[in-house]
């Protein structure tokens, strides 16, 4: 089964954009579009770019998303916050697990795309397997991190007082440019496991997996708008990501210190929470942790009086 798929997809790449089709049956090529609010539109700008692999082979005509696409994506993400964060944590776990199931089922396609994007087969297989396992890992955390990071606080007065994590809201992310699937999954999963929604800019040079991953999301019972994926150039879009007043947090995964400075500077406008995951090795254990979930959580503390706590004698 896997072999046949491999074969046929290999044909796609070989017969890709530039090579003449020689087989009897003409392959159907995939259009790589962006993912906003559960739909697959083309960029409103009508622009595209053509990423190539090392050998110079064209990968696809990929949407060059615009500021307006980003704005639409934020609208979709904002609209999805209350529904997604309002779901039972258990249910979020089920949806993330479903995402892993869907990814497992389309493993071959992802391996093929990674190979097109220059990964050796063994590395591509490893990356897809890890991405699936990472989703399972965070699926399990959905209804557990709250217990680990909550507290009942022993205040010195007659109040019941507790602190719990809550999602910070809409998170804008520039995905890791290198690990185009594993990196993408590793930044999305903790953010949505915690009940946030997000807008993500895929790897500029390796965007294929990101778009195909959107298809996985689309068939995983993940509500529309929870994850929105754009393709395009970070250089063009980062500043809009950090300027938008309805974005609560920004995640940046590259080392460019000029961009990092710009993100910190401009995020001050509405005090976005900022996280730089530029030193994380997504292939190791350090690439997954409930502390990533906590980055995009706020701690809420609630107080309520307890009647007559001192005089009641505690019933003992």
């Amino acid at each position, binding site marked *: 089964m896997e072999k046949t798929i491999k074969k046929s997809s290999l044909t796609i790449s070989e017969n890709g954009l530039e090579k003449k089709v020689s087989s009897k049956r003409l392959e159907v090529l995939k259009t790589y579009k962006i993912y906003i609010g559960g739909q697959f539109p083309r960029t409103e700008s009508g622009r595209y770019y053509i990423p190539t692999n090392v050998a110079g082979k064209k990968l696809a005509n990929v949407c060059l998303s615009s500021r307006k696409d980003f704005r639409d994506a934020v609208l979709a993400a904002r609209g999805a916050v209350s529904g997604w964060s309002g779901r039972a944590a258990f249910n979020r776990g089920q949806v993330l697990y479903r995402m892993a199931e869907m990814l497992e089922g389309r493993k071959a396609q992802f391996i093929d795309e990674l190979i097109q994007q220059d990964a050796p087969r063994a590395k591509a297989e490893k990356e897809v397997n890890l991405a699936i396992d990472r989703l399972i890992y965070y699926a399990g955390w959905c209804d557990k991190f709250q217990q*680990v990071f909550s507290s009942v606080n022993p205040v010195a007065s007659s109040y019941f007082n507790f602190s719990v994590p809550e999602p910070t809201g809409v998170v804008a992310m520039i995905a890791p440019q290198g690990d185009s699937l594993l990196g993408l999954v590793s930044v999305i999963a903790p953010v949505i496991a915690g009940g946030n929604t997000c807008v993500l800019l895929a790897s500029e040079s390796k965007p294929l997996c990101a778009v195909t991953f959107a298809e996985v999301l689309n068939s995983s019972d993940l509500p529309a708008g929870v994850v929105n994926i754009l393709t395009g150039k970070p250089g063009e879009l980062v500043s809009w990501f950090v300027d938008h007043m309805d974005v609560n947090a920004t995640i940046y995964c590259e080392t460019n210190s000029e961009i990092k400075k710009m993100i910190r500077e401009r995020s001050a406008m509405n005090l976005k929470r900022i996280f730089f995951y530029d030193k994380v090795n997504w292939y190791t254990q350090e690439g997954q942790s409930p*502390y990533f979930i906590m980055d995009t959580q706020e701690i809420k503390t*609630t*107080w309520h009086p307890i009647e007559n706590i001192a005089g009641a004698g505690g019933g003992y």
Partner: protein
Amino acid sequence: MAKTKNNTLKLKFDTSWSYAPAPESKSAATINKQYDLFINGEWQKPLSKKYFDTINPANEEKLSEVADAGEADVDKAVKAARNAYDKVWKKMPAKERAKYIFRIARMVQEKARELAIIESLDGGKPIKESRDFDVPTAANHFFYYAGWADKLEYAFPNRITEPLGVAGQIIPWNFPLLMAAWKIAPAIATGNTVVLKPAETTPLTALKLAEIIQESGLPPGVVNIITGAGDTGAAIVNHPDINKIAFTGSTEVGKIIQRAISGTDKKATLELGGKAANIIFEDAPIDQAVEGVINGIYFNQGHVCCAGSRLYVQESVAKLVIKKLRDRIETLIVGDPLDKNTDIGAINSRQQLETILKYISIGKKEGAEMYESSCRLPGKGFFCRPTMFTNVAQSSRIAQEEIFGPVLSILTFRTDDEVIEKANNSPYGLSAGVWTDKGSKIFNMTRRMRAGVVWANTFNKFDPSSPFGGYKESGFGREGGLHGLSAYVNIVN
């Protein structure tokens, strides 16, 4: 007021009885004529050679003069902190660090009365608040965090942490000693060293704390306390050898700080402004709610970032609640901060009084209806009557912007969804309150309000074990409790 006809019982406050003056004695407090900078465990003359006055806002008389730290002084303090970090503090066994902090907590308790008097003299807050809230809570913060020093592996499951290094801490004038404790205690418990700057209008209790720290034998340089205004703060923020900025103050300055450190690896926690919604439902215990609203907005003259400055009352009880609030503000005693009966003391500074008065006139211009207490204000000093506005629009500036004074904006609502929409319609998200007798409604509201601290059927409660800090433009990071520790450590692996 008693002549007002109504069907509800009303306490009669307008009796012929009045409170005799009950002033706390100033003799229990020693204030030096002049204070230098507390750097490396010693009192050092400022290299800037400059001093500035700190006054009593209740009578505008000079209390003392304090050094105005310049860039060179800041540099000296940071060097002392770095040296203490490298050579002493980070190497010291955590349990020994803990004992120093416990000792400081005890000494604050021992000198509680003196600290309370100075706090009220320098900042204008009523002695009953500095005595019963600020000073004991400050001591408790040291006591609470002392115990964490050697237990950090329990706070960060499955991870090892390390201190950040030198923390630059800049604190406001509304809770001078308490904010110093909030900042210093978790920082040094986790193994960092500190350069702290109190606000320019309220430096004295932080300097008293420096005396306590010196007396406690804390190794020199672990805590450095330097005084000055905005320029001193900027020098701390911009100093290249500082690893962490902890700031409590206005959102405006918080954003400036965030921009200033954007090209660096400095970490920050910002505890900024607020415009808390305090919501009263028709089924609430109205008398308790009225007390809660009064405490929520008039506590500390309203100089509270988490003050309940936007009151949302359900329409069906609005008339009753407003009447009771008017009756209640009439009974608040405004005057000498050192008088034990005083409810509302002096506004912290002339500048702040002007800000408050500006907002009061904006409120009137915007068409809201104003009520204020008819009390007489002292002839000298900075005072403001407890004030409230009704018929306030959601878009009104007095409903959107932080006033930081004893001014309450009252709005009404009909349904749960409506009030959530209105309450969350603010760039701030520090605190919120809800009053209702129905348990399920409490949890519905507390869950949906976007704020870091939510008080249900109470308001303005604080505790060292309870995390405090905001959502959205009220800042990031938490202070207090287990969650307050993460502001001062790096998670290593």
